């Protein structure tokens, strides 16, 4: 019997700390993409509510409950993160397993928004992007999903680009810390 071992996308890369900011890898649990079939969004949302206790998020939003989040990721598309999905959801939505496809990291600390302002072309300050917000946008040249959690900003990029993500963010973390040091 073969026993394959698992590696996380950022193994060996994180955590990193510079200045006031820490970048660390998150374990998102199971990630399932949900794409409601034609006319099924309300039914999907109801099924999600029944099975997992949260609804299908509006564009740019995250729905959340104990142990599960549903993150808007694209038009008519959201990721259920945490639990194994109720198979009944498949009646209303196309579902794929995305658990291994994403590097999921958390950027936290006082200068978090200043760090990402050097890479991301949208306004991520808490007033414009409060908890419960989600966006698809760019991080330097990569497409990413960014959402605000209580602890900080969650950034997701393709697994294969984890090294680049860590490099880009570490670079601007140094820059922001350098500005602080320079006064």
């Amino acid at each position, binding site marked *: 019997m073969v026993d394959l071992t698992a590696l996380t996308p950022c193994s060996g890369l994180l955590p990193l700390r510079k200045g006031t900011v820490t970048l660390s890898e998150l374990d998102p649990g199971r990630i399932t*993409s949900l794409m409601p079939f034609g006319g099924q969004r309300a039914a999907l949302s109801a099924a999600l509510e029944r099975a997992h206790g949260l609804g299908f998020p509006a564009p740019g939003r995250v729905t959340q409950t104990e142990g599960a989040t549903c993150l808007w990721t694209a038009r008519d598309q959201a990721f259920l993160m945490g639990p194994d999905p109720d198979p009944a959801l498949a009646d209303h939505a196309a579902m794929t397993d*995305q658990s291994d496809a994403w590097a999921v990291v958390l950027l936290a600390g006082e200068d978090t928004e200043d760090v990402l302002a050097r890479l991301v072309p949208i306004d991520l300050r808490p007033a414009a992007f409060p908890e419960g917000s989600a966006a698809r946008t760019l991080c330097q040249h990569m497409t990413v999903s960014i959402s605000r959690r209580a602890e900080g900003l969650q950034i997701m990029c393709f697994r*294969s680009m984890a090294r680049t993500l860590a490099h880009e963010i570490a670079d601007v973390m140094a820059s922001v810390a350098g500005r602080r040091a320079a006064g």
Partner: protein
Amino acid sequence: MRIDGKGRVDRNRPVNFTFDGKAFGGFAGDTLASALMGADVRLVGRSFKYHRPRGVLTAGSEEPNALVTVRSGAAADPNTRATVQELYEGLEAVSQNRWPSLDFDVLGVNDLAAPFFGAGFYYKTFMWPKSFWEKLYEPMIRRAAGLGALSGKPNADRYEKAYAFCDVLVIGGGPAGLMAALTAARAGAEVILASEDCCFGGRLQAEDETVDGDPGATWATALAGELATMENVRLMPRTTVTGAYDGGTFGALERVAQHLADPGDAPIECFWRIAARRAVLCSGALERHIAFRDNDRPGVMMAGALRAYLNRWGVAPGRRVVVFGNNDDAHRTARDMHLAGLEVVALVDSRHDAENMAGDVPFYPGWQVARAHGAKGLEAVDLIGPQGALKRVQADALGVSGGWNPAVSLTCHLNGRPVWDDRIAGFVPREDAVPGMTVAGAARGTFATLACLREGAEAGREAAQALGFSGELPVIPVAEDEAYHVRRLWAVPGKGRAWLDFQNDVTVKDVKQAARENYRSVEHMKRYTTQGMATDQGKSSNVQALAILADATGRDLPETGTTTFRPPYVPVSIAAMGAGSQGKGFAPQRFTTSHEASVARGAPMVEAGLWYRPSYFPQPGEKTWREACDREVKMVRESVGICDVSTLGKIDLQGRDVGAFLDFVYTNTFSTLKPGRVRYGLMLREDGHVMDDGTTARLTENQWVMTTTTAAAGEVMKHLDWVRQAYCGAMDVRFISVTEQWAQFAVAGPKSRELLNGLLDHPIDDGSFPFMQCGPVSIGGLAARLFRISFSGEHAYEIAVPARYGASLFEVLLGRAETLGGGPYGMEALNVLRIEKGHITHAEIHGRTTAFDIGFARMVSARKDCIGKALAARPGMVEDDREQLVGLRPVTTGRELTAGAHLFDKGAEAVRVNDLGYITSVGFSPSLGTFLGLGFLRNGRARHGEEIRMVDHVRGIEETCIVTDPVAFDEDGGRLRG
């Protein structure tokens, strides 16, 4: 020299620096320019063309003369304006455009030869003979004429770019800007206040005047302090807004650490992209000079700058001062210099009816300055009276004011031409030149401080109101409210050279000559003379040049044209704009889960799009890549090879209508594919050319997985989104990329099934897993996917596991392959294997080939529509004389074919008109013992068996080839089914 009792530099904090290697001292708060002036250095640079000695002209970013190189080695920053560079301990600056030294510059002889060097000189002189241009003229001109030089070394300094957002962007930190920011912020708007200066106050920092009873600079600093405490205000000192762009986007350059001796990790500069819902432009005004003979001598300055150096920094270029102007503001310079104890030897006002507002100084109304004397520094000034009376006065400082131009630059960036205003004899911004931006204060021609304060407050309130914020106007402080009068004077008539554009060495005569040679349009004149074309963009001289052109062509000034500006307002270093995009930041790198293992085995990694893939896996004793490649090909053909194919795009499609959707995007039919089966498909662009190819598997009734080539994965995804959203809105189809979810490996070769059966929880055979079968399998209880597909032409599979297990599975597969006499293979072997089989890649489907060309015309189903079908049938797209895919091999075994070579009939001259096609892919086939090629040959399918000539003009290789079917190995496909 330093003037006692004047200036706001900190005389208790001396700062040491060097200029051209010589040590000097200044004070905290100095700029390099003020420190040099304080140290009696007047000669700071040589001009661009004639290498004329030049001194500091201005006190700001508009400086044309005082360009120096700051720092050294790889960190050297050429063309730094000494007037902007703040002094720091240990600063090193060197002058530019001189050899061997600033004081003695050999190319100063250019100045003696000036009669030959006038406008258009380069255009006229260096035309013939043509061959001389590249070898002689251009290198010579480049050496002689130029600004600072780059170090040529990679710069390790950190630069940055960043995004910012606000309700109201206030551009300029002077009285108008401060009041605009305060008013908008108090109303509740989120405000960014950008000040080019290191502090706030703008012109108040340069004046000896009070606001609300306090010195203006003190008032400004206090207000900036108040703004800094407000949550909704972001102060950005040392930040020049460089451009206004569409949709409320502004570019801005922040000098973050240019003023620090040791920046540490702080960036030198940051290039900001600011998205603002509203903007208020309070960029102030820039003084212009008046042209007269030798008006470029060091010591001759803008009158406003002379005053700024005195009031802010406590320095002056000399003790005996002449002030020359055509407006009231010049009088303030004379007044301040006089009150500071300097000797004002003449206040010269070209207006005969002017009244002296400078106090007890010799006053010359109706007089003009005719000439400056002194080579490397001003010594004397010739005055000319209303009736031609001449008078020479000894002087070492001369302040000149031709009036003030509103700094309208940003209002021009979206094509808004400024309009002429006779009241100030200058251009003012057009209303609404930039949507959402209003202009206040000196930038719109309002010069009295009190009026600037009021206009700023009003503009701030208006900007906030437009966004739904309401607030009161603050109390306008008590401030200077003097009238400003100016009367046009651009150039003093007379012999000799009178300078307009100091940086580009353009004279009044040059502009007149341009007009004489019929360059009457201002745009032509600028290009012919190079007026306004360097780092300062003619900020202090464009209006005079335009006025002189107007005179010379007998037109009104507004009728002649207008000055206009493009971004950036000040030079922006490429390092700042491209920050983060050097080296690894240039593009994301994508790594497969087997990357580390491949590198550990010594595989050279090659780029495939953003991905990195192993080229080959060298074994001990192998001296060339070919040896490794030949071995890997044989290994796959004889035992089993493992190759990571995770980089291919994988798209999961679900829904009732996926079959119909695939029928529409692929040329062939997919709706008939049974669950558990895989089919090869061809995708066209709408113009009938092949876009991509790959296999699509139907996993279940309603779930499919499409594969794309590595290179086209993104393009195919965009295409599918387009086709579905634009043409198939009624179809129930949902898709998403699963490329990153699966680590997928090819297991190829006669022993592939043996390997897999040692690995899978349940063994497979030809019955359960025939060619083009797919299905779920498990490995140690882990759910995996198996596809029996083959790119190599061997009995082969692709096995996919969730990516977290990719690295582990790769090691397991290699271990098992090695026990069977197999191992990993790389891109080189993969390429040879597919060439042997005549399988195409993007080398063949390169965007100009059709299904017909590659021999797949039969794959375009006649029974349905698909993307590209109609136009693939256009006349010319299916003719026999098109270049068709063929196989090629050399007539003489062992001879080499080269990709990129062209094909010609034997005996035909190898020239363009005889070109019959080209070779796209080549490789040495160890299976057949010969080089093989794929290529396109006119009417090639009818020419199998014929000999054809291959000519590689680039490498100088020629070979005779035999034309064959593209499939060279295992033509009947027995191996992949067996």
